[in-house]
């Protein structure tokens, strides 16, 4: 069932484990703040995956030094660009989630979504 590269790809394996931890936090935690932390863990895990994929043994960061422009000298620049874009997206999403949390807390004085739903039902609106 498992393929040949599980232990060579240990970085990717760890990032996948982190992804699932973040995913389950986002799905299962009752506390909103912890859900948001889970979201961040999930996103960074994907970026770790991408960074691992861009890495090539014995090569350096893609910043041209001394005019050397051979492919053999530098790592793959594409994943870095994707991750840069992704980090900004996850910051924006985090800010939105946190501000929603603040608004909900101001109104209902709790961070538990089920409790909020219950209060809403009691409110009858």
């Amino acid at each position, binding site marked *: 069932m498992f393929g040949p590269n599980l232990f060579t790809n240990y970085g990717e394996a760890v990032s996948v484990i982190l*992804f699932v931890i973040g995913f389950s936090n986002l799905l299962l935690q009752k506390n909103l703040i912890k859900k948001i932390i889970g*979201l961040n863990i*999930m996103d960074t895990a994907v970026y770790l995956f991408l960074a691992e994929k861009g890495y090539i043994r014995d090569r350096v960061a893609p910043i041209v030094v001394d005019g050397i422009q051979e492919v053999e000298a530098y790592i793959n620049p594409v994943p870095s660009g*994707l991750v840069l874009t992704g980090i900004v997206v996850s910051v924006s999403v985090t800010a939105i989630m946190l501000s929603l949390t603040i608004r909900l807390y101001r109104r209902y004085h709790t961070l538990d979504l089920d409790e909020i739903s219950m209060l*809403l039902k009691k*409110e009858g609106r």
Partner: protein
Amino acid sequence: MDFIQNFPFFSIILSMFSGIVSSVLPVKAARRLNTFLIVAVGVMSGILLVYLTGTGEPFVYWMGHFPAPWGNEIRAGVLEAGMALFFCLIMFLSMLGGRRQLAEEVAENKQNLYYILVDLLLSSLLALVYTNDLFTAYVFVEINTISACGLIMVREIGRTFEAAIRYMIMSLLGSGLFLVSLCMLYDLTGHLLMSNIKESVAALAARGEYTVPLMTTIGLLCAGLAIKSALFPFHSWLPDAYGYSTVSSAAMLSSLVSKGYIFLLIKIFYRVIGFEIIAQSKIINVLFIFGLLGMIFGSTSAIQENDIRRMIAFSSVAQIGYIYMGFGLGTEAGMTASIFHMLSHAATKSLLFVAAVGLTDASKGRREFVELTGSAYRNKMAGIAFTVGSLSMVGMPMFSGFVSKLLFAEASIGHAHKMLPAVLVLALSTILNAIYFMKTVIRIYVPDYRSDCRTITIKKQKAYAFTLVCFILLNVALGMLSKPLEGWIHSGLAMFG
């Protein structure tokens, strides 16, 4: 290169630019700019559609100075242009129909922010429709999600906050799955551009390499987009979000936002992975089962509901189930039926939301069925429109819903294993649909003499009545012109290839 080929690019950039400009404009100017934008994009898409039908060839457009695998790229075919036109039409009508409620329910100093959200929503929808690059699709999926969240909670009451946060949690789960599958796909193929990925995937499949990760990737991709478009077990945010947000938002959310994701999924089926590989895989069976479950569950929940807006929202769950069932058939006919149902559902659902608001307005803003008794007499136009929408949902000939149900039935007949369940559930779901929609229609046409609610005449709300007439005409047009539309979908799918 013809000048018309610039139009997809113009419409995306124009809508983003209007969003940016709206941030410093006063409310009225922002509203005018928004209307102008939607009309302009609609006209451009219409011209593009005519042009593409003439040439019969899709074209790609470089975003920058670099050709295909290096730079970004957008691509337009008949289906894309038609979808853009249709989205603009629905958006225009939804904004027009909900304008009065918008002024009442959204705080004065936040209305121009609302128009920014709508502008950027349009840009993200257009980008999702036209893009030829998976990572661009991811970025615009995020814009779509965030603007949808903004649309939900712009009416600042407790319910909408709760709905917005549930919506965000669900769609972020979906985005995470989408992103991780995107990365795996990039790792396997080394490309982000749809056409190149398709070539590489076909080569991999022919050589039989990397079968396990490829299938996993496809599964995660489908799961991510299914979660985002509220397929059955992931719909918990939907009733509150559609039921309590301001009416323009509800209409746009149900008819545009989820459809944008579904259109992206179709695009991925055809342009990224290849329809043959999808049709052979087991993944579509899963989609099929969840589609069927959604059809039944959505309808039964809608029957139990005592709130007209929430009832319509639950009906959306059922309709999304129809669309995924069409995917699950794994045939060309099933896809055609699904795409047609996307159109028909978008037109009908926004009509129902806008009409329902007219009915509740004529009943002191109460939304329980008891209070709605006789409201069709107090607001005649809304009553007629709601009836038309319900008939279309149930599947009355002449209206659009009938055609899509017919297409689904045709697609499933002759299928070896899936014919029986598909046809049975289709029939059951139609009966359930009829129960709850006809119940509502009868309720609103029962005379109620005791009521002291005010009557709303057409003269008082000309824009609203105009919107409803347009919606009804659109619905009838979709029902009557099914043959040319089918031809259009077929040629569009062929252009995907």
